[in-house]
C-alpha cells in the first residue's frame, strides 16, 4: 500500500514536471491582466501622457494618434516567450499605451521563436492576427506575402516623437536595413537590433597588456599569444555558434554573398579560398588558442563558462549574450567587444559585419484602424521610455536615437555603428539547413584540432 502511494506521488510529480517542461510554449495574455504591472504602468503612463502634451505643444501640433483617436483591439503574435524580459517589457509598454489610448486593447500571444512559422500557418488558416514580430530575415523569407507596406507611416509623428516624423527619431541604419530588404519599401518596423561580433573579457585584455583591440589577423594572433602566455584560454565557442570563426573569416575573404553560394552548393567547395580560410583557423587550433572544451561545449554551457570561469578571453556571439548570461555574470566582469579583424587578401574590412534586428510587421489584411493602432504602438515601443526599458531590463539595443545603451554593450555599440555593410545574422555559412549541421560539425573538429584544413574542406563540403 505504501509503495503504491510512493508510486502515485512520484508519477504525479513526474507528470507535472513533464507538463511544465514540455514543448508547447504557447501562452497568451492581454494587456491589463496583472495588478502589479498595471500599477507600475499607471505611473509610467502619466509620464507618457505628459510627453504627449509636450509633443502637442512643441511639435506641429498633431500626432497621428491624436488626429483621429485610436479605437479597437489588436491581436499581437510575438517571437518572445512569455517569461523573457523582452516580453515583459512589451506587455508593460502595452499597458501604458492602452492607458494613453483607453479605447485600445492589445492581446498578446507569445510563441517564442517558433512564431516565424506559426504565424504563417495561422494566417493561412484564417486566424485573426493584426501584428506580428520576428527576426527581419524571417519576415523577408517567410512573411513577405502577408505584410503591409508601412512606408507612409514613417513620415508621421506619434505620441512620443516630439512632433517629429517617426523616421527621424530612430536609428537610421535599422530603418535603412528594413527598406533595403524590401526594395525600398518599409514593410516592418525594426526593434531590438542585434549584432554578431567578437565579445571579450576585457579584464583579461587589460591584464595581459593589450591596449588596442586587434584590427588585423596578425594582431589577433599576437593577442592570442599574449593571452595564452598569461595562462588564459584565448577563444571559445559552443554548438549554436560553431561556424562563427570559419564563417566570419570566409565572409571577410570572399564576401558574404559568395559564402551563401558556398553554403548552398557542395560543388563550390573546390574554391581555394575555402582552404585558405580553413588554414588560418587551423593555425589557431595548432597554436592551442581554442578552449580544450570547445568540442563538447553545448549551449548554454559555453557562454556560462565564459562569464563564470573568467579565464576565457574571446567568444564570437550576439549582442544578446550579456542578457542571456546576466544572472551568471560576476559583477566585476568587464564586457568588451570588437569587430572581427581584417584578414589577409580579404575583400571586406571591419566595416562589414553581421547584424540584424527583430521587427514588427502588420498583417496586410488588417483593417486601417488596426494598422493605425499597430504602427502607433510600434512607434511607442521604439521611442518611449519602454525603448530604454528594453535596454535596462533586457540588455537589448534601444532603437531611439537618444536612448542610453546598456553598459555591457557600449563597445558593441561602437562596432555596430561602424558597420556599413551587412553580413547575414551569423554569416551566411549557416544559411542552408541542408549543409549547416555538416559544416558546423566539421568546424568544431577543426577548432579542436581533430582534423586538418584539407580534411575540413573534404568533410564540410560533403553535403
Amino acid at each position, binding site marked *: 500500500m505504501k509503495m503504491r502511494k510512493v508510486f502515485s506521488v512520484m508519477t504525479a510529480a513526474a507528470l507535472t514536471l513533464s507538463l511544465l*517542461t*514540455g514543448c508547447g510554449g504557447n501562452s497568451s495574455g492581454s494587456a491589463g491582466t496583472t495588478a502589479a504591472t498595471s500599477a507600475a504602468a499607471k505611473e509610467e503612463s502619466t509620464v507618457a501622457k505628459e510627453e504627449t502634451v509636450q509633443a502637442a505643444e512643441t511639435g506641429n501640433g498633431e500626432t497621428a494618434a491624436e488626429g483621429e483617436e485610436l479605437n479597437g483591439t489588436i491581436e499581437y503574435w510575438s517571437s518572445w516567450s512569455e517569461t523573457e524580459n523582452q516580453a515583459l517589457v512589451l506587455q508593460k509598454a502595452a499597458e501604458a499605451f492602452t492607458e494613453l489610448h483607453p479605447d485600445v486593447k492589445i492581446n498578446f500571444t507569445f510563441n517564442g521563436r517558433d512564431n516565424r512559422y506559426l504565424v504563417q500557418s495561422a494566417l493561412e488558416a484564417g486566424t485573426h492576427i493584426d501584428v506580428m514580430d520576428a*527576426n527581419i*530575415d524571417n519576415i523577408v523569407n517567410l512573411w513577405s506575402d502577408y505584410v503591409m507596406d508601412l512606408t507612409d507611416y514613417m513620415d508621421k509623428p506619434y505620441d512620443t516623437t516630439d512632433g517629429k516624423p517617426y523616421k527621424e527619431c530612430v536609428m537610421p541604419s535599422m530603418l535603412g536595413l528594413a527598406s533595403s530588404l524590401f526594395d525600398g519599401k518599409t514593410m516592418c518596423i525594426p526593434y531590438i537590433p542585434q549584432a554578431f561580433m567578437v565579445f571579450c573579457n576585457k579584464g583579461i585584455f587589460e591584464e595581459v597588456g593589450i591596449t588596442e583591440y586587434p584590427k588585423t589577423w596578425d594582431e589577433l594572433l599576437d593577442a592570442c599569444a599574449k593571452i595564452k602566455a598569461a595562462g588564459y584560454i584565448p577563444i571559445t565557442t559552443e554548438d549554436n555558434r560553431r561556424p562563427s570563426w570559419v564563417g566570419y573569416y570566409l565572409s571577410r575573404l570572399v564576401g558574404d554573398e559568395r559564402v551563401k553560394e558556398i553554403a548552398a552548393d557542395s560543388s563550390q567547395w573546390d574554391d581555394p579560398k575555402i582552404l585558405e580560410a580553413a588554414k588560418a583557423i587551423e593555425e589557431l587550433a595548432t597554436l592551442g588558442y581554442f578552449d580544450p572544451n570547445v568540442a563538447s561545449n*553545448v549551449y548554454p554551457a559555453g557562454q556560462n563558462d565564459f562569464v563564470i570561469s573568467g579565464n576565457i578571453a574571446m567568444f564570437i556571439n550576439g549582442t544578446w549574450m550579456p542578457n542571456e548570461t546576466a544572472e551568471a555574470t560576476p559583477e566585476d566582469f568587464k564586457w568588451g567587444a570588437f569587430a572581427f579583424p581584417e584578414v589577409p587578401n580579404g575583400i571586406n574590412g571591419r566595416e562589414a559585419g553581421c547584424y540584424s534586428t527583430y521587427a514588427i510587421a502588420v498583417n496586410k489584411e488588417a483593417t486601417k484602424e488596426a494598422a493605425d493602432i499597430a504602427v502607433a504602438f510600434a512607434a511607442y515601443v521604439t521611442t518611449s521610455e519602454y525603448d530604454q526599458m528594453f535596454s535596462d531590463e533586457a540588455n537589448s539595443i534601444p532603437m531611439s536615437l537618444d536612448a542610453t545603451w546598456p553598459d555591457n554593450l557600449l563597445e558593441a555599440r561602437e562596432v555596430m555603428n561602424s558597420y556599413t555593410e551587412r553580413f547575414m545574422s551569423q554569416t551566411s555559412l549557416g544559411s542552408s539547413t541542408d549543409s*549547416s549541421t555538416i559544416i558546423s560539425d566539421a568546424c568544431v573538429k577543426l577548432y579542436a584540432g581533430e582534423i586538418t584544413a584539407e580534411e575540413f574542406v573534404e568533410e564540410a563540403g560533403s553535403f
Partner: protein
Amino acid sequence: MKQTKRSIAIFLGPAALLYVLVFFYPVVRTTMMSFFEMRGISSPMKEWTFAGLKNFNKLFHTQLFLISMKNIGKIWLYTGIATLGFALLLALILTQGLKFQKFFRASVYLPNVIAAVAIGYMWLLYVFNNKFGLLTTLFKLLGWEKMAQFQWLSGNNMFLSMCIAYVFSNTGYFMMMYIAAMENISRDYYDSAHIEGANVFQRFLYITLPLIKGVLGMSAVLWTTRTIGFFALAQVFSNTSTFTPMLYTYRTLFATEAGSESVNPGVAAASAVVMTLTAVIVSQGLKHLIKTENYEI
C-alpha cells in the same frame, strides 16, 4: 443488442470519422504534397506546382538526409537491442517477488512519463557536462581520471551519449509490458518445472520466452513506430551523428531562424513519406519474422 450492419456502422462511425480526419487526411495530403512544390506548409492547393519525382530525387541526393536514415537505422538497432534487452532483464528480476519490487518498478518506469526534451536537457546539462556533470564528478571521486576526462558531448561521442539517454527513458515502458505478460503466465508451469529440476535459465528459455513471444513481437513493432519519429533528443543533442529523418523533415519544413530561406515543404513531405513507408515495411517484416503461436495459458 443484436449486431446488425446498422449498429456496427453507428458504433464505428464516430471513430472511423475521427480516424479519417486526424490520420487519413494528413497522410493523403502529405503524400500529395511530396509530388508538388509550394511555398509554405499551409499554402492552398491551387498554388502548388506539380514536380513529379523531383522532391524525392533531391531528397536522395541530400547527404544530410542519407546520413539521417543511417543514423535512425543505428538508433533503431543499437538502442532497440539495449532497451528491449534491459526491459526483459528488469522484468525478469522484478517478477521474482523481491522486497521493494513495486518501488523499483515505479522508479524504472518514471523517466517514461517525463517529456523527452526535459530528459534530454537533464542529461545534456547535468549528467554529461564535462566540467561539473554527474559522470565527471563521479569518476573523479572514484579516481578514474581517464573516464573523468571523457568528452561525452564531443562530436564523436554525442551519438553514444544520446543513445544512453534514450535507453534510459524507454526501458521502463517496455519493462512494464513484459511484466504484464510474465505475470499472466500461470505459476503452475514454473512449479512443475522446478520439481522436474529445471534451473532458472531453463525455466526462462523453455517457459517464459515462448509464452511471451507474442508480446516480444508486438514490442518490436512498437519500438519501430516509436523510433521512426525520433525527434526531441536529436534536437537537443544537435550533431550530424545524431541527426534523424524527423528532424530533417522539421528543419526542411520550418527551417532554422538563421536558415529561413531553405524552407521546402515538398521535400519535407517526401521525407515524411519515406519515413512512413520505412516504418510500415519494417513493422510488417518484423511481424512476419516473429510469428506468434497461440498457447492456452
